[in-house]
């Protein structure tokens, strides 16, 4: 059990690459912390610095209040699950699980009991005498987990442990992982590029981009109150829609029409200059089919271009009619987060609405969509930052 603190951590490589920039995080004991971000954002580097596999260029890493920058990995008492699992191929499952205990010089009977316990927890008891080469992907993943939990370390580090599993197994393992972590109560840092994993697993999520921490918070907090365009676009699937707009006399003017500013936003926009251009962010579920239900809120006519029926949801894609929102942050986002799906070539050029599956919208036809103005976000196109003062938490989240 350990509290992990990162204070002003930097990582600079010899070739000048600045992989991690001024990372500050406090991970309390027992927390399940997720590092999420596009590839190359420095999340794995940060994890490897906590493990001791990479040197820290600047800043301090604390384990339970003690600076461990110079401590060898073996002296940190932290275990790690690698993306490749890194099972020792010349050892059986039993030997793999026993390895950390044997290195630590534990007595034989204790090793035996602990290995058997871990194997039972992970349903590996029948496979103890097999070699990793003869195991399935899921079993290998569980052996890697077992090797991490068997010596009850102070913290678990996991580097994309599920990315080599097929989709179905990944979802199943994800829930098992969450259950296991909750049962053991061990501080866990988990690296992933998959925002779904981040949202479902973590107590808190740290979003990184280009080596910089963008925002830390509970999954709900990140989703509801992204601090900047990057977080807004990265968290949530399908991604948030971005529309170029202007603030004018208490209204948000877009090429599609005007939206009233609700009270919550009005409070936060007092400092905004008149006619300020903004980027309006609307979650796909911020739209609803006006033909389907009664409600209040501004409505728009759009021409539906693509319909994806997922069973529980229906995604309708349409164009924003203007050239789309333009911002350096948006360009970064499109480039780095690989949001360029087949349907949404880049954020801001195609909009998507998550509609009730009963909706009758069809490709090539006009549909009337209603916008729920309580779900909107506003960003500064220059800085990419949210216009909401993030320090004051949203009313819906005071309990979180």
């Amino acid at each position, binding site marked *: 059990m350990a509290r992990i603190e990162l204070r002003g951590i930097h990582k600079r490589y010899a070739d000048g690459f600045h992989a991690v920039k001024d990372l500050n995080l406090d991970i309390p004991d027992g927390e399940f912390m997720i590092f999420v971000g596009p590839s190359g954002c420095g999340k794995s580097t940060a994890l490897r610095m906590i493990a001791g596999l990479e040197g820290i260029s600047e800043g301090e890493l604390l384990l339970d209040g003690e600076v461990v920058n110079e401590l060898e990995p073996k002296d940190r008492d932290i275990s790690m699950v690698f993306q490749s699992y*890194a099972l020792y*191929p010349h050892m059986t499952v039993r030997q793999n699980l026993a390895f950390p205990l044997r290195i630590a010089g534990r007595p034989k009977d204790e090793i035996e009991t602990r290995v058997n316990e871990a194997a039972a927890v992970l349903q590996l008891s029948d496979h103890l005498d097999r070699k990793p080469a003869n195991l399935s992907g899921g079993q290998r993943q569980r052996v890697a987990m077992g090797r991490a939990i068997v010596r009850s370390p102070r913290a678990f580090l996991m580097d994309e442990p599920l990315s080599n599993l097929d989709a179905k197994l990944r979802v199943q393992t994800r829930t098992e992982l969450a259950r296991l972590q909750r049962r053991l109560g061990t501080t866990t840092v988990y690296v992933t590029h998959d925002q779904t994993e981040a949202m479902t697993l973590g107590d808190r999520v740290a979003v990184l981009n280009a080596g910089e921490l963008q925002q830390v918070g509970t999954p709900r907090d990140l989703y509801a109150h992204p601090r900047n365009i990057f977080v807004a676009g990265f968290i949530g699937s399908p991604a948030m829609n971005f529309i170029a707009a202007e603030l004018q006399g208490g209204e948000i003017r877009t090429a599609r029409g005007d939206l009233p500013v609700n009270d919550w936003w009005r409070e936060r926009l007092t400092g905004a200059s008149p006619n300020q251009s903004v980027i309006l962010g609307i979650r796909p579920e911020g739209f609803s089919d006006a033909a389907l239900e009664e409600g209040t809120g501004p409505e728009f006519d759009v021409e539906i271009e693509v319909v994806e029926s997922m069973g529980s949801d229906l995604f309708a894609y349409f164009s924003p009619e203007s050239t789309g929102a333009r911002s350096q942050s948006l360009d970064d986002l499109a480039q780095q987060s690989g949001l360029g799906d087949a349907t949404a070539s880049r954020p801001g050029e195609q909009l998507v609405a998550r509609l009730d599956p009963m909706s009758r919208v069809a490709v090539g036809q006009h549909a009337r969509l209603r916008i729920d103005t309580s779900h909107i976000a506003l960003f500064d196109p220059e800085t990419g930052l949210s216009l909401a003062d993030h320090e004051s938490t949203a009313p819906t989240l005071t309990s979180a």
Partner: protein
Amino acid sequence: MSTVAPARPASPEVAERSPKKRKGQGTSPVLWIGVVFVVLFCLFPFYWLVQISLRTSQDIGVAALYPPNPTLSNYSDVFQNDDFVAGLRNSAIVATVTTLLSVLVGSFAAYALARLRFRGKFTILALILSVTTFPPIAIALPIFQLWTDLGLNNTLIGLIIPYLTFALPLTTYILTSFFREIPRDLEEAALVDGATRFQAFRKVVVPLAAPGMATAGILTFIFAWNEYLLAITLTTSKAARTVPAAIGNFNDTAGGGYAQPVGLIAAASVLISIPLIILVLAFQKRIVAGLTAGAVKG
């Protein structure tokens, strides 16, 4: 594969489809003729040696493909020869010590070259390899002079040192490529699991590089066992003379220096080939085995 007994195919069609079967059917007689020819071509000199070793000294000149009066007398005679027996002992010591030192030192060097980041790594590797390009004859005389000054002439250590200079570059080169193949994750996993760098090396890297070590070790052993030029240059008596040098001296020693001990030389040559054959057969599986299978995702 051999440890897991595969279920027998239920129907002949299934058996037909197995890749092994298909390969067998596709082999043409031309290929077989070629294989037989190559094997005969390669093994014929050895057969000639064996059949000479089984001839009596009178039959040596007889033109026949087989010994007219086969006898093992050459073999019993060769063991009566003190030079040969001492040579066997010397060869065993020199080859074994050279092999062990070469694999030990070579694996450290190779690990550093494969894993650590430092300046001039490739220059070092190139320099190490360039040592092997020197013809032994070029260094035989300088070493002889040096050893005379240092008093290392006609000693076992005086042979082991120059042998290492030739064996180490090859060992280092072979092991460097083997170490490079081992995923870095495995070592890092060992480090996080509580191992020191050396423990990670010994318990994870070395077992996985075992095929490479066996290969390098066998090549070194064969080199040191067969080496002739330095052996005759640097040794003067049976105190340090290795077996190839001892056999080369049969002309002077056996039969008071008057007989032509062809049968004896043949028998000795057959005998010293046997350890190498056993070695290669014993380690064949190790050399071939791909131990890293399953280390990372399949």
